[in-house]
């Protein structure tokens, strides 16, 4: 077991190394001169020379990368050109907001998705199943930004029940925080609930047909016990994969929602960084999102081993 985790950890580190290299190479992928692009080009030759040296552009690319990586590992991702602050400081301000929304959305969508999935699978063909399946199918394909704008139009502008945008932490102003959180959270969670419902339903239907479910019924187990003890554990295996994917995607997904609701998180930061060609900041954001996705994948794989004894740990 420990060996397996160590092995997966090693693979994750390898992936991160590759990702960090590609992230760094963003500078070279940009069209034109990177320094000119960053600064808008209106600088004197002297400043150019200084920046050129500062960014180590005079050194070979691998050396530059090594220096950058060393900085990144010690918590130095450089200085943002548009904010004129250390990238690490900016990100550490923004990350908690995004994590807050992501985790909340995750915590809501998993149990609800599984519950709806079970209900519709167990009562296959009933009115409840039709309603759940139909709703889930529709919700699955709603784009988040469109949903956000729709919510904003209905609840903020027409009904005036909720504030249209902004963000405060719960400990600052609980009531306002809740009112501000509802709409973005729904936008983030609805897709998750829908896709987890669909996955749970289909894998549950698959599992219910299996021979071992017949065996369990032939023992005289109650239907509930057959479903929750024998079927659910098997049916959840593909759902775990999906959960990992959802969680990994939530941070990236925050780009739309945070922009629509003007929430100071990673998503809006990334968009700002890109529009102002703030290369150190882009690098920092991309690297962080990559680390997050890798860690989530690693956790998913480890959880898998615990849940599915068929994965042989050698």
């Amino acid at each position: 077991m420990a060996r397996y985790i160590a092995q997966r950890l090693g693979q994750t580190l390898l992936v991160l190394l590759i990702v960090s290299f590609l992230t760094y190479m963003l500078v070279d992928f940009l069209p034109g001169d990177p320094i000119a692009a960053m600064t808008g080009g209106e600088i004197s030759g002297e400043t150019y020379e200084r920046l050129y040296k500062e960014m180590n552009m005079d050194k070979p690319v691998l050396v530059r990368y090594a220096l950058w990586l060393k900085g990144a590992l010690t918590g130095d991702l450089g200085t943002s050109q548009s904010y004129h602050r250390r990238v690490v400081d900016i990100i550490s301000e923004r990350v908690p907001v995004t994590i807050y929304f992501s985790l909340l959305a995750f915590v809501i969508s998993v149990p609800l998705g599984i519950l709806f999935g079970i209900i519709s699978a167990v009562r296959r063909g009933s009115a409840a199943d039709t309603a759940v399946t139909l709703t889930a199918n529709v919700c699955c394909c709603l784009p988040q930004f469109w949903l956000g704008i729709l919510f904003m139009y209905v609840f903020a502008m027409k009904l005036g029940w909720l504030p249209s945008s902004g963000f405060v932490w719960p400990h600052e102003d609980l009531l306002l925080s809740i009112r501000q959180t509802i709409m973005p959270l729904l936008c983030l969670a609805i897709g998750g609930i829908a896709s987890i419902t669909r996955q749970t339903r289909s894998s549950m239907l698959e599992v219910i047909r299996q021979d071992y479910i017949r065996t369990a019924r032939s023992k005289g187990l109650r239907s509930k016990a057959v479903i929750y003890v024998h079927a659910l554990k098997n049916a959840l295996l593909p759902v775990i994969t999906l959960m990992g994917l959802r969680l990994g995607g939530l941070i990236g997904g925050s780009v739309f929602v945070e922009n629509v609701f003007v929430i100071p998180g990673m998503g809006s930061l990334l968009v700002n960084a890109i529009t102002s060609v703030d290369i150190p900041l882009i690098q920092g954001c991309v690297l962080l999102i990559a680390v997050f996705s890798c860690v989530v994948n690693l956790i998913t794989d480890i959880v898998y081993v615990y849940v599915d004894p068929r994965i042989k740990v050698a």
Partner: protein
Amino acid sequence: MASKHLLEIRNLVTTFRSDNREFNAIEGVSMHVDRGEIVGIVGESGSGKSVTMLSSLQLIASPGRVAGGEVYLEGVKDNLLSYGSDSEEMRQIRGGRISMIFQEPMTSLNPVLTVGYQIQENILLHKKVTPEEAKRRTIEAMKMVNIPDAETRYDYYPQQFSGGMRQRIMIAMAMAPGPDILIADEATTALDVTTQAQLLEMIRDIAKKTNTAVIMVTHNLGLVARYAERIYVMYGGHIMETSDCVEVFHNTKHPYTRALLRAIPRLDDPKDRVLIPIDGLPPVPSQRPPYCPFYERCEYRCDACKANTDYSLKQVGENHWSSCILTQQQLDEGAEALLHKNYGESPVRPQLDDYCLKVSNVRKYFPVYKGLLRKKVGEVKAIEDIAFDLKQGETLGVVGESGCGKTTLARCIMRMYEPDEGTIIFGGRDIAHLKDKELKPVRPKISMIFQDPFSSLDPRQSAESIVGESLLIHKLVNGRTEYENRVDELLRKVGMDPAMKDRVAHEFSGGQRQRIGIARALSSNPDLIICDEPISALDVSIQAQIINLLEKIQAETGISYIFIAHDLAVVKHISDRILVMYLGRVMEIAECDELYEHPLHPYTQALLSAIPVADPLVEAQREAVPIQGEVPSILKRPSGCPFHNRCPRATERCSQEVPALHTVKGSHQVACHLV
């Protein structure tokens, strides 16, 4: 009204839906079981034998439903069907008093729960015991079914056991709460013959010791002849005949049972016995006629049969019931007429002295890779030192249990694999190491018939293109007309109407698909056909048709067959010589009769003894050769003679030295130090 039997089923009717139409899967089945007896229910697929059992336990899955009938169990006042499927009463009976073992050991246990959990769950459900006591009883039950090291294995998951071991766990699970009745639904069908024999012996011993009644549901007449005391024969959702085991086999009344017994090959058959197939196909449940379901295929049928719609069981002797309305006199006359009916001689095959195939010293190992860099860490020694020859027009049977390398051998001869070592002389030239290009002229001369007629035909191709494909590939025809004519001729040769050649695979029945498979194999005019378990997926009544077809084709064309199967009775019937394999090595090769009368290798003896003969009187006289353990994984082949750790006669030498294949007398060769 309660019953004097332990379990009595009266007029059970179960319906299913298909195409929005309800039809009866079983129509008024009545049977009973007494305490401690072993009852066999035999029938082909779709006969309703499993449905009867599942219905009486109310385990029929929606949209199927039990539409009528009564089920009584000793000690329970009410009709069991009056309780709801999920009611407390029904659940206590299900698993507690009547438990069930299913066919597929690989899928019948929950993969994410430990076997210990799954067994003790059954005890906790039905016995009022503490969890500690349940665990103790679980381990006891595991020991009862001979699972070594039961205390440790308690925490194992199903996939850590072999198929045979899993079925033992199923038995332990079913027997743990001490049921009155054990239903074994094709419980050993998926297992190797030696494992099957071990398990059924064990079930019989446990049942007799605990006075548990056993209901054996199977399609295998041999198994019921060996183990059952009373038999129900089912066909088309009805019971056709029932009586004591010996009565059914030796004073057979119903024409269906009679036909069945004439259609199956037996281990003790004389060489020239003609199998008499049952013509036609079993009725589709949704299109069953109102009269006797066997009418269309029955050789005794008369107009009265078609007019009659009451074919419930009628007493025809002491303890003997049959659903046939014909009188004893009519049946006797019918049998007399059948005796004189000419089914044709067993086809005489031209035996030539030229060799079709000479295999010597063939070896094939498969590398095992592991890790990120796919490092080679070992080898699977699939086959080693294989040597045999095959004359033109001869049939060589290859038998052995799973993992013995039968299929690897077939693929080496087909040259789908290149053997690591050895020579394969075919058509006067060594093809073992030819390059793909050089093989091209050889390819059409060797073809293959596969086991599963359902998955071995392309579902999107018409019968015509399946059969005609190799004609085009090998450019065996000139022009469209010749192609059409040749395809029609091939289809006629295998007994199919060329008018059906535009249909695709799923429009044919299993037997018809296998006929198409045979036509495909014949299309390139091969000299050798490798038949890999060609009939094991087919129903008993269809098997004989295919065997006879293969024999007829051989007599006409002088083709050679390599016939791979695990069913020794079939192999014996069709083969001239038989090669016995075990864990990748040849154990024994001999002429058919010689092998069955004087098996020399202890493995051959055990294998033959494990195969039941469909005759209770013969069975009673046969001497059982017990075999220990299970076939080891090919990855852990024992040193020396691969069989030594299961062999009752093994000596020190057997574990150290691999015995060479040597000739004993005539063409009888054996690889054993003791012979």
